[in-house]
């Protein structure tokens, strides 16, 4: 009929339809149980919750921050071993790229790093008061620094990831260890400055915590002067003091610089101390004869911090079990003052300040009920004595024994001496997880671990 009329109808409808088919109509509200990024960072109460998420997700939900480091990384040293044969590859240093336990720290550290990176990217543009913002940046940097410290100390070269753009970061290659360590030091220095004047308790990140960790990093990377100065700063100004052996891990301890708050009852799983009890439940490690025999008689650390279960000695720094409730008030300790004394001692010894070094060691020895070191020790002997003190002080706590053996180059001599351990020098670096190499062809494996 009237083609013209038809054309007008069709055209009119097409135009109105295409006007309608525009993008803004499709904008919808997000579902109520998912809080999207804009909404989070737009409301300062939510921002505070994300900052708190650093604690809830790291200290309470990420094993890297409670028991899994000592649990997996003590058996690769000569301090303790699992009774379960499932972990034999750790006990005998037979781990390779497909070992799930040595791969653990890699994944867990980067999970924590993402939290910090997310905050660091978005905090500056939020409406928090400046002082609070600064403090939060410090907290985020501390956690990032700690996570990278664990990564470099175990794997050597690792990708330095600071972005939350996963599409890019998924293929990043490894960065040299020294570069990453340089970044760690920067992060900790920034954290120190940012946390100046913060009123955080020691259940949260403080300037002292950042300084204490920094002292450790300096020592591990042979910056003796800085290590001595930093450790000294912490000892003099942080306000913490050594406590009796039996009090070191209690809530009332005077020497905890940074610890996880365990303010709930066991059943709510808030109490991470439960997992750190390596004598019972499923977590138990047996101390090696070598460690047990190396203790001097009267060493309070042996009597108070170990316990015998079926004729074997187990680490017993934390006493919480499944059955006990929040009566024994313990908190899981991440950094404590004792380490600063030993850092200062070692830094001094390396700078040939032997008398001062020995003085620091003796403080620790006295606390442990031991007599002072004999006079006239050489530098090498002093360093060995320090290594021994560290071993007796920090057994089954974090991965101190491993860190000490590897950084001093003593791993080959010590671990290689055990015939049942399949020690080879390249094993001082843990293997990069094979799964990661499979997914990212830009990653390389540590030497000695065979074909990728």
């Amino acid at each position, binding site marked *: 009929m009237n083609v013209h009329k038809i054309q007008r109808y069709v055209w009119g409808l097409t135009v109105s339809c295409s006007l309608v088919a525009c993008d803004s109509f499709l904008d919808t509200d997000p579902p109520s149980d998912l809080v999207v990024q804009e909404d989070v960072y737009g409301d300062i109460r939510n921002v505070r*919750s994300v900052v708190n998420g650093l604690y809830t997700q790291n200290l309470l939900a990420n094993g890297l921050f409670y028991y899994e480091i000592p649990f997996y990384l003590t058996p690769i040293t000569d301090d303790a071993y699992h009774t379960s044969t499932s972990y034999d590859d750790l006990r005998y240093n037979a781990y390779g790229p497909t070992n799930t336990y040595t791969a653990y720290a890699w994944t867990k550290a980067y999970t924590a790093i993402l939290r910090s990176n997310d905050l660091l990217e978005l905090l500056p543009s939020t409406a928090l008061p400046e002082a609070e913002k600064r403090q939060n940046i410090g907290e985020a940097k501390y956690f990032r620094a700690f996570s990278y410290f664990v990564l470099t100390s175990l794997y050597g070269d690792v990708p330095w990831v600071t972005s939350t753009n996963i599409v890019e970061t998924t293929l990043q290659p490894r960065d040299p260890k020294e570069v990453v360590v340089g970044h760690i030091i920067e992060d900790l220095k920034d954290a120190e400055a940012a946390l100046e004047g913060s009123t955080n308790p020691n259940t949260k990140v403080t300037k002292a915590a950042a300084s204490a960790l920094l002292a450790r990093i300096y020592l591990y990377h042979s910056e003796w002067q800085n290590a001595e100065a930093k450790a000294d700063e912490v000892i003099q100004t942080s306000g913490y003091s050594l406590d009796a052996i039996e009090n070191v891990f209690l809530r009332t301890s005077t020497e905890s610089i940074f610890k996880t*708050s365990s303010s709930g009852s066991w059943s709510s799983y808030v109490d991470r101390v439960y997992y750190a009890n390596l004598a019972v439940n499923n977590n138990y490690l047996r101390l090696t004869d070598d460690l047990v025999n190396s203790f001097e008689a009267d060493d309070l650390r042996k009597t108070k911090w170990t316990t015998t279960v079926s004729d074997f000695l187990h680490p017993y720094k934390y006493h919480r079990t499944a059955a006990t409730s929040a009566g024994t008030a313990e908190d899981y300790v991440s950094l404590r003052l004792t380490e600063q004394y030993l850092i200062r001692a070692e830094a001094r010894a390396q700078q040939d300040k032997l008398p001062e070094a020995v003085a620091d060691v003796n403080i620790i020895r006295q606390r442990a009920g031991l007599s002072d070191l004999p006079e006239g020790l050489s530098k090498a002997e002093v360093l060995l004595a320090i290594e021994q003190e560290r071993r007796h002080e920090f057994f089954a706590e974090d991965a101190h024994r491993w860190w000490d053996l590897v950084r001093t180059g003593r791993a080959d001599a010590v671990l290689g001496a055990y015939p049942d351990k399949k020690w080879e020098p390249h094993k001082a670096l843990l293997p990069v997880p094979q799964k990661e190499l499979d997914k990212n062809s830009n990653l390389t494996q540590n030497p000695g671990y065979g074909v990728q």
Partner: protein
Amino acid sequence: MAKLYNISYTKKIFILLFLGILSGWYPASAQEDNKEAKPTIGGIAYDPITGEALLNEGVVRSQTGTVSTIESAAIEQEQTANTLNALKGRAAGVTTDDGMLIVRGQNSIYKELSQPLYIIDGVPFPAQFISGGNTQSSPLNALNTSNVEKIEILKDADATAIYGGKGANGVVLITTKKRKDSKLRIDASASVGITNVNSWYDFLSTEEYIDFRKKAFEADGITPDKWTMTNAYDLLEFGDKYHTDWQKEFVGKNGKVSSATLSISGGNDQTRYYVNTDYFGTENNYLAEKGDRADRINTRILVNHIAYGGKLQLNASLAFNTFNSKSRGLDPDAYVVNAPNQPTRNPDGTLYWLEGNSSFVNPLRSKYAEQKNQNTTTLGNFQLLYRPFHELEAKVDAGYTRNTADQLETFTQDYLNPYASNSYKNRLLAGDSYRDIFTVEPQVNFNKSFSEGVLTAFVGGTLQTQKSQADDFELRDFPTESLFGNYKAAAVKTSVAGNTGAKKYVSLFGRVTYDYRNRYILSGTLRRDGSSIFQTGHRFGNFWSGSASWIFTQESFIRENLGFLTFGKIKLTHGLTGNDNLSAFLYLNAYKASTDPYEGSTGLYLSQVANPNFTWEKTSKSELSLDLSFLNNRLQVITALYRNQSGNFVDAVPLTAQTGAESYMNNVSGATIRNQGIEVELASTNLKLGAFSWLSSLALTIPQNNRLIRFDNILSTSYATSLKVGESLHVQRLYKFTGINKENGVPTVEDFNGDGKIASADDKQFIGDTDADFYGGFHNSFRYKGLQLDVFLYFENRPFQLGYLKTYFYPAGYLGKNIPREFTKDYWSPENPNGKYPGLTTTTSSAIGTAYYNYYTESDAVYSDASYISLKNVALSYYLPKSIVSKLKMRNIRVYLRGENLITFSKYNGWNPETSTAIPPFRTLTAGLTLSL
């Protein structure tokens, strides 16, 4: 929406390309006049209202999409709890899987995302499960089969591309009954029936079971003095005192079904109305207590109004469906295997529990787990049509659907083992959810006849918003169970969760068809869809299809030489459709609350790392089909060869650990799923002698579906151990069974990598898949005067399916577990070293037991051929003769007797080859009556 592709011809032609059932000759509803009729493909069609034969006016069928149509008569014959079951075997290319309909295979790795689009009377109807409380229910629960006029399943690109971004998985168009004339009509019907189990599984009796257990202890070397209450309480405590038939306990009772419908229609030349209400109820037979039943009521009101001499038309309808059920039980499968000498109840009627045994389970405890479900569906539709002149029609369709699901589960104290330490005394779980969809679709249709052909075109748009919400919670420790209704009385309130969702959708579509002399037909479709699921910039997808048909029987040389061929058409289609069946907001970073607070403050953390770039999944479809009618439409055959390839599907792509996140949603490029196969549908009038006639129809599908033909880097994804390129998505990764060790009866499996150890990572292989090789339905209808017999057979060939031993994996002789007689016939023993089944053992820590549990039941030995033929539907109907009917001042009276699922023939070694579970096939016998005034 149902008429999108054939608008201009509805007045003149009923387009029925396929029939899987005979009902073409069977008037469109059982309430119709019992006119003699013929199959409807290509032949004479009947106006379902007047029963008059419709003579096409020069145009045969030019619809170009592939549509399988199932008419109401067939649907009605299947009065089931789920409308989808009515489709099984009635249309080619359609299967049901876990309560979902799948058309031509899965286009996604996830079954749930492969569901088709459902449209009821033009209104989109989301059939995705709604979560309420602990379970999910399908909204189709609320739709009564007797309400349905026809179901059309659109399969190929041409039919589905018009649905663009939602058509990838096929489209199911459900049309409910309507009346189109103005005479006052009243129709009513009623039926009653009983349901029971159609076969019993043969287990051992108490005496046989005890004997077996003794033999098993002997085989393990455990002498009677070593029998304890831990390893032999069934012999020491129960002995042969009890003879429990667990099957009869659970499904021994008969269930009842009943239905009733009433509809009234009438009006005048301008206005017509149709009111219908429809009830379907079943009384359960599974573990039934008094009052356990499911009821469905559907009510509909339709009004049509015509004005300005037919130029303006208004149609409005409102439907309200409810489904209410009360039932028992949680673990339907577990009861089957219990020992026959296990007591059920104490003399005082309380449940029997083994004293001091905290892990003992009395299957009858399920009686104390009650479930109440209520689903409602509200469907409203309003349509305005304006036809200013013959060639043009403009219309607007507005529709609203609301689905709700409410669920309540209660567990009373009797459910719990009194010797176990239970963390709660009684428990209640509740969930509520709803989903609203509102759609507006304007459309303009145009047609123009030229001397040589006809051009039709239409253009339209869609706007749709969807909103949903779900809440659920759990309450524990009510002081008494009678207070279950009073939520405040619960001592403990846990697991409170809720979420809301929203989705919007906008599109523009158009189609052009040119029909040259009814001989060559070309058509093209284009659609542009936008979905809110995706991020700005990735929201829109373009979908299209093209098709070409040749009705070669219109050519003179065919007519002359192949006179027996009444109708012949060959058609080729190809196109691209899409799928956006995903959760919303995956493209944004999102945060979740931490489980535990730190020092009293909660934390938020980044839980979803986003990829803003993901977009539509795409499926390309191709089809070649041949549509033939012979001997004046006595035999009609439609054959279709299809091939669909889906790619770009969205999945959680794994990330490296250094990103800090595990995965993110992305379109998986380099992965393709292919579905291809052959479908055959035929209908024939076999015999017509006077008043006797015999008609048959067949729907056959030979699929090669669900093939993963490409997946780059699959080995570095989480699918490495479950999928393999070149195999079906349902491939099974198993040990290869290498026989029973003749020395000791231990089952052995192949050490695939030859390293001397059996470990699943290295020794399991991809062996077989659980897909069906072919399946279909065969319907025969016999008629003599007023008497009619319909027989419908459903068959399926599935050579490799989870067998009985895969699901019930206790070794023969195990404590407290009965053995099907089948497995006692040829087990290994020192006297029978060539036994087919493993030796007897009482425990899973013996050599036989360990191998049984870790290897045997994870091998291909426990798979079984689950092919079957089922006599799915037999119906005998009698139409009272006109003389009697008119004396009663009625138009039509019919009585019928119907049996469903009467017999199933199968070699399957389990109970139910259809579902491979312990719920046996139920058969139903119904008697009914329909009247129309």
